[in-house]
């Protein structure tokens, strides 16, 4: 069954910059957004993709209770690229109750709770008023913030499937539209730096001490980033210039909690299902934006899956050396990058990577290149073996 949706507005705030023009400028000039870790007092030897300026942008007014790094990043994203006026126009067109909100996140505002633990009383109690749990740490917080900020009253949920979270929002939104209880859905993803992910990935030995080098023979881990991204999805018709979501594919590895299936079976299933839904063949895909985290196991498993389906012809690259791995925001951030690639007929090279691992068989692009693109794929795979693949194209 073909599922085509028009993407009628896009907004992004990511380590490459705020807004599509800044992001595109960095992308085409091969400028990355990583730096040596300078997040708070986290003593972790790694590089991070940090969103600039959030410390000086507290949330004030009606939504002040939602103030935390993650929600500041969400608002910074919503304010880019004419997204708010586009949603306001859709609200007039459809009514606020017919527009849904689905946001992916993994750690939400947990940073607030992490810091509160440092301020505990001598007997170990949290001072209750120091944590606004519902408005910060709880995963629903960011979806509520987005919904209220945009003045929407339709269906709403947060999705949290680790690093596929904000790819999965496209699948659920497609179902909401197909089931008929929405006329438009604001999808997005927001994840921000916190101690849990920096120290957690470090404990698994998955952080690189240098900028991550996806697919490199000497790759040795990922770089964590933070980002917010949003898109407005509507049924096709009257949006001929828009990029369209042509298909989505979801799967579970059913293999291991934190390492992918060695042959990439779950990843391959997600891509197969996405192509089937888009009624497309592998040859119809002109570029694959890899999940490509830069850990030895992830890149190898994804390569096996791509080789099985696409062979060595389809150009692939990872953009995580540019933005870092933005975790729950990776799906939407890489969807934004993939759409910029489509709009500008551009394939971004895999930054920092010097020598492609000879074990990898797919066509990994190291240098950026201009070439005509009709349809592209974006892959997102998460802990728990949760996989989601999205197909975007110029035509409905």
């Amino acid at each position, binding site marked *: 069954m073909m599922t085509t949706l028009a993407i009628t507005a896009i907004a992004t705030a990511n380590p490459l910059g705020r807004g599509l023009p800044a992001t595109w400028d960095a992308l085409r000039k091969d400028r990355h957004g990583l730096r040596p870790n300078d997040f708070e007092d986290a*003593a972790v030897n790694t590089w991070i993709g940090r969103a600039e300026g959030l410390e000086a942008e507290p949330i004030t007014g009606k939504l002040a209770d939602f103030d935390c790094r993650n929600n500041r990043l969400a608002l910074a994203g919503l304010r880019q690229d004419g997204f708010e006026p586009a949603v306001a126009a859709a609200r007039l067109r459809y009514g606020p*109750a017919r527009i849904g909100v689905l946001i992916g996140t*993994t750690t939400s505002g*947990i940073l607030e*709770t*992490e810091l509160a*633990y440092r301020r*505990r009383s001598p007997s*170990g*109690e*949290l001072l*209750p008023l120091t*944590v606004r*749990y*519902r408005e910060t*740490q*709880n*995963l*629903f917080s960011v979806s*509520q913030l987005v919904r209220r900020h945009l003045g929407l*009253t339709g*269906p*709403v*949920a*947060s*999705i*949290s*499937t*680790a690093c596929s979270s904000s790819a999965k929002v496209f*699948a*659920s939104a*497609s*179902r*909401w539209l*197909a*089931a008929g*209880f929405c006329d438009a859905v604001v999808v997005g993803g927001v994840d921000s730096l916190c*101690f*849990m992910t920096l*120290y*957690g*990935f470090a*404990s*698994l030995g998955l952080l690189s001490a240098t900028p991550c080098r996806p697919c490199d023979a000497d790759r040795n881990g990922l770089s964590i980033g933070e980002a917010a991204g949003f898109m407005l999805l509507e049924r096709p018709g009257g949006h001929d210039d828009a990029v369209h979501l042509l298909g989505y594919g*979801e*799967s*579970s590895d*059913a*293999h*291991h*909690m*934190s390492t992918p299936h060695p042959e990439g*079976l*779950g990843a391959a*299933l997600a891509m197969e299902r996405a192509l089937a839904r888009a009624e497309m063949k592998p040859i119809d895909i002109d570029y694959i934006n890899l999940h490509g985290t830069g850990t030895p196991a992830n890149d190898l498993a994804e390569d096996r899956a791509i080789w099985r389906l696409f062979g060595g012809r389809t150009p692939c690259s990872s953009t995580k050396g540019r933005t870092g791995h933005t975790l729950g925001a990776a799906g939407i951030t890489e969807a934004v990058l993939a759409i910029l690639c489509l709009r500008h007929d551009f394939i971004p090279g895999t930054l920092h990577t010097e020598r492609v691992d000879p074990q990898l068989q797919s066509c990994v692009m190291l240098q950026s290149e201009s070439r005509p693109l009709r349809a592209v794929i974006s892959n997102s795979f*998460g*802990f*728990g*073996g*949760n996989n989601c693949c999205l197909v975007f194209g110029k035509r409905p």
Partner: protein
Amino acid sequence: MQIFVTGVGIAGPGLDGWANTHPILTGQSAYRMTPFSRSIPDILSAAERRRSSQAVRLAILAAQDALKAGDLRGEELATVFASSDGDGVITQDICESLAGSAREVSPTSFHNSVYNAPAGYWSIATHSQLASTSVCAYDVSFAAGLIEAASYATVERQPVMLIASDLPFPPPLHVIRPVEESLAIALLISPTARKASLMRWEIQFKPHGAITAFPTGLPESLRSNPAARGLPLLAALANRTDETVSLEYSDETDLVVLCEPGA
């Protein structure tokens, strides 16, 4: 949206599986509060039993229970996991470590910290490679999960299991989210009637109004658990009479479920 409920599972204090809970909800037997057994679901392999957290075991107990009376196997089912708070035990463990001088996070805690940890363990246990989505909507996470599962069944034309679960936060986190009891509810949902189908549900959105009362005979302490918002629907399933159940969904909207017995 029209769906068919083809299996039910439950795990909680004094609510030890659907077979035992069913007569409590019909009033045939009295509820007796017993501490939640915290048994480890036998569907998990030895390695996963060892690594799994309380939140994972709770959700999977209900999921496994829902398969008992149904005519579908776990590997044939997509899943939707709904939880307001995820795993407070893991959150506490990690925040405590991060506030200490060593700041070490245990690798096992970290991989269990993802919201979709129950989904990951369940897919490994059942070998299901189908889609799995984990949703959160704070107090109305059950309703959000039901929408997700119902739209999945309706649009994808495939059966899906909804598992809603939450458990108490340990101190000191308990003060910021005072959930009193553990509870997990699982519903096996199919797009068409099956031999094992118990009820047909028609799900609609309505402007916010009166919502269905919490089932009588159950302790107040259960109410603080967001998954307990699904209990009025379980009462309808137990009684198998025509019934309209309204669940709060948002400040503006309720989810109305028109329940009809049989398939």
